[in-house]
């Protein structure tokens, strides 16, 4: 067997490896896990809402004071999302094309059970929901002033509200509350499969550790789901 090596720019080998079906999945797994990390940090920051108004405002100001560093982080985060979502669509279309004629009848042969893995078929669907959620979320916070200025929503929230007040104000908007509550649960379902699946895709599977990964995946999904869904609930019930 001869091996194909070398290339144009010195990184062609990487590009070519990552272009295969496995390579694309590896990139999705890596970006997915990175985004999971982001979710955790984001959740941690947001949990300051419960600590107190001052703490939360301090955190927000500190974050925004990072300037160029924040910009780099945001660009990185944006890239992760774009790559993850782009590859999701790309692989989904490719996978659909691999079976041009559908079966008249299909049944799973897997054991059904309460802890059965969510079918990966729902990943694209939940992913799209999460994407919509994300866009709403960005419009609420990242582009708050634009959203407000265009007169779309959030007229009741003062334009110069402090971060804490702004968060509470946005979450008290009924559409936002519903989107945040439902979006968080769908996100949890998405990461439930995604988290464990990423380990499998990266080849990290072992009789000793895989059950642990699966448990972690469930715990992580619950933490993410309950954590994020609690904010609109809190904003409506206690504020």
């Amino acid at each position, binding site marked *: *067997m*001869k*091996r*194909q*090596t070398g290339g144009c720019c010195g990184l062609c*080998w*990487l590009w070519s*490896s*990552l272009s*295969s*079906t*496995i*390579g*694309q*999945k*590896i990139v999705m797994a890596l970006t997915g896990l990175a985004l999971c990390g982001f979710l955790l940090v984001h959740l941690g920051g947001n949990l300051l809402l419960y600590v107190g108004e001052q703490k939360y405002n301090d955190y927000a100001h500190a974050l925004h004071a990072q300037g160029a560093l924040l910009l780099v982080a945001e660009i990185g985060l944006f890239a992760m999302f774009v790559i993850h979502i782009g590859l999701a669509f790309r*692989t989904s279309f*490719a*996978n*659909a*094309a*691999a*079976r*041009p*004629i*559908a*079966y*008249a*009848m*299909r*049944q*799973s*042969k*897997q*054991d059904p059970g309460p802890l059965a*893995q969510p*079918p*990966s*078929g729902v*990943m694209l669907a939940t992913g799209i929901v999460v994407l919509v959620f994300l866009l709403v979320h960005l419009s609420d916070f990242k582009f708050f002033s634009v959203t407000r200025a265009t007169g779309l929503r959030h007229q009741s929230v003062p334009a110069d509200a402090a971060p804490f007040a702004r968060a509470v104000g946005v979450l008290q908007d009924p559409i936002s509350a519903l989107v945040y509550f439902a979006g968080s649960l769908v996100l949890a379902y998405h990461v439930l*499969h995604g988290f*464990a*699946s990423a380990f*499998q*895709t*990266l*080849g*990290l*599977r072992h009789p000793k550790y895989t059950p642990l990964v699966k448990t972690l995946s469930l715990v992580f999904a619950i933490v993410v789901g309950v954590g994020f869904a609690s904010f609109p609930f809190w904003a409506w019930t206690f504020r």
Partner: protein
Amino acid sequence: MSDTLNLTLKVWRQASPSAPGEFKTYKVYDISTHMSFLEMLDVLNEDLISKGEEPIAFDHDCREGICGSCSLMINGQAHGPDRTTTTCQLHMRRFRSGDMIVIEPWRARAFPVIRDLVVDRSAFDRIMTAGGYVSVNTGNAVDGNAVLVPKQNADKAFASATCIGCGACVAACKNASAMLFVSAKVSQFALLPQGQPERSQRVEAMVAKMDEEGFGGCTNTNECEAACPAGITVDNIARLNREYIRATLTAE
């Protein structure tokens, strides 16, 4: 339980690769519960011939679950409802009188239909051609015991090597992915000392060929494992991914 069954079969008929196909409905009577699924189809075919209708084409050969020739989606399940069982080893006692059974060919872009329930699985051979071997000419071998292989590795390699190449993994996968098939062969050689010299080339070449043949990618649904008559597990797919990453990152 009665010893014979009356069944309605909905079978995919397609005269040639290019002809449009359609489902046809047939009735079979007094099917013994001891018959295998293929023997039931034999009975139907004998009946069709006597009526002047061409028999249903389906691939089969050893009829003992090892050659990998037989296929069939039976009520939407590859090789029918039983786990680790090929269609030829599926017996009619698994069904009830009055049942309607839908029989379709494997469906995948990489497995075009030849006729009725027969598909072309030569894509698997081409994947094997790309790297599913150890490059050793006849006559070059050292003594069989010159290289020791720990029993647990030999057993694992054997478990991976029992793939019969039937294509049920592709048929059952929602993406028509051949990952389980490829991973079984890559794993067998990755686990044995004989496979080490070409470890990286093998995985790269086989994965490239798999993609080229038009199979889908793996989304870790694990349906292949449930459908595999040889009991190949998705541990192999994880190993394939690992081997692929290893091959990507290591230099020659």
